[in-house]
């Protein structure tokens, strides 16, 4: 009887031992993992996802390899690209007024008309004989319209950010106060510039008629020094074509 009891307890212990050893397997982790049905499904989905990603990455690698080959091929001509870019940069700097330029064009020299001894300084006659900033603006505008590529007033180059502002007896251009007489130099199509300067109802003639002294000259070799300091933009940025506002 006692033997049977002992055997029963032994059996129970063995079963318990097997259970504990199985638990060891779980906690220590075996290489073979048995998955429940739902886990297996998730794992399969994950595997498919990874395979897809591999596929995409392979394709990307192929594309990049092709691009690389293309770049390698064009490396030889990259020096040409650099020189082209430098050429373009220089041209832009010339047009913006930062570099010295030369070329054919005309010069216009304006001086205030001489006042009569008896003339009141505040009279309309006196006002008409004086050169104002809006006169300069109109002349510049006319010259641009008639083929001027670059313009300078008393050596100050006119750029997109140039202001022409009246400061009592002076005109402020590029932040510099310039006194009369004003010499406008314009490089461009000489004939059309001259035609504008001599046109009957052009601003130049109007000023001459007002009593301002105007001297128009044709110049085969004008040299305009660079006077505009290029600024780095602080507020503007590129408008991308993705609909960004």
């Amino acid at each position, binding site marked *: 009887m006692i033997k049977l009891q*002992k055997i029963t*307890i032994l059996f*129970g*212990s*063995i079963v318990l*031992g097997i*259970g504990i050893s199985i638990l060891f397997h*779980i906690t220590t982790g075996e290489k073979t993992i048995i*998955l429940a049905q739902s886990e297996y499904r998730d794992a399969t989905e994950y595997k498919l996802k990874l395979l897809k990603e591999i596929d995409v990455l392979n394709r990307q690698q192929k594309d990049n390899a092709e691009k690389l080959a293309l770049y390698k091929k064009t490396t030889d001509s990259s020096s040409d690209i650099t020189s082209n870019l430098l050429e373009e940069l220089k041209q832009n700097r010339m047009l913006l007024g930062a570099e010295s330029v030369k070329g054919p064009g005309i010069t216009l020299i304006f001086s205030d008309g001489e006042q009569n001894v008896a003339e009141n300084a505040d009279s309309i006659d006196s006002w008409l004989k004086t050169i104002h900033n809006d006169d300069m603006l109109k002349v510049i505008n006319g010259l641009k319209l008639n083929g001027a590529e670059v313009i300078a007033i008393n050596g100050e180059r006119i750029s997109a950010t140039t202001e022409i502002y009246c400061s009592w007896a002076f005109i402020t251009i590029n932040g510099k106060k310039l006194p009369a007489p004003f010499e406008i130099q314009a490089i461009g199509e000489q004939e059309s510039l001259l035609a504008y300067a001599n046109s009957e109802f052009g601003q130049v003639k109007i000023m001459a008629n007002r009593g301002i002294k105007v001297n128009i000259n044709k110049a085969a070799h004008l040299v305009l020094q660079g006077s505009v300091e290029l600024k780095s933009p602080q507020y503007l940025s590129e408008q991308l074509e993705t609909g960004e506002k």
Partner: protein
Amino acid sequence: MIVVIGLLIGIILGLAMNFSIPDIYSTYLTVAILACLDSVFGALKAYLGHTFDSIVFISGFFGNALIAVALTFLGDKLGIPMYLAAVIVFGGRLFNNFAVIRRLVIERYFRRKKND
């Protein structure tokens, strides 16, 4: 002694069989093992107290394990950790059984020493 031998044989057998079950069933197995451990200690106690009954032991061994697993399963379905009930009950009983076993073993040891 017999329990220790049995456990060792069982562990060796289990490791040799290299049998494993999914991770998510580990809680069930733990609870079942706790119930079995309680039954084995209960059996040892009964054996030392001369009240051991094989049928009671076998039925308790499997019955308790089954009930513990069923409770855990139910807890999983209801969203409450029901296996804690099994852990507390069987854990408490384990300590009780062990205390009784300790007392019986000590008594037996001293009685034998006295008789000598």
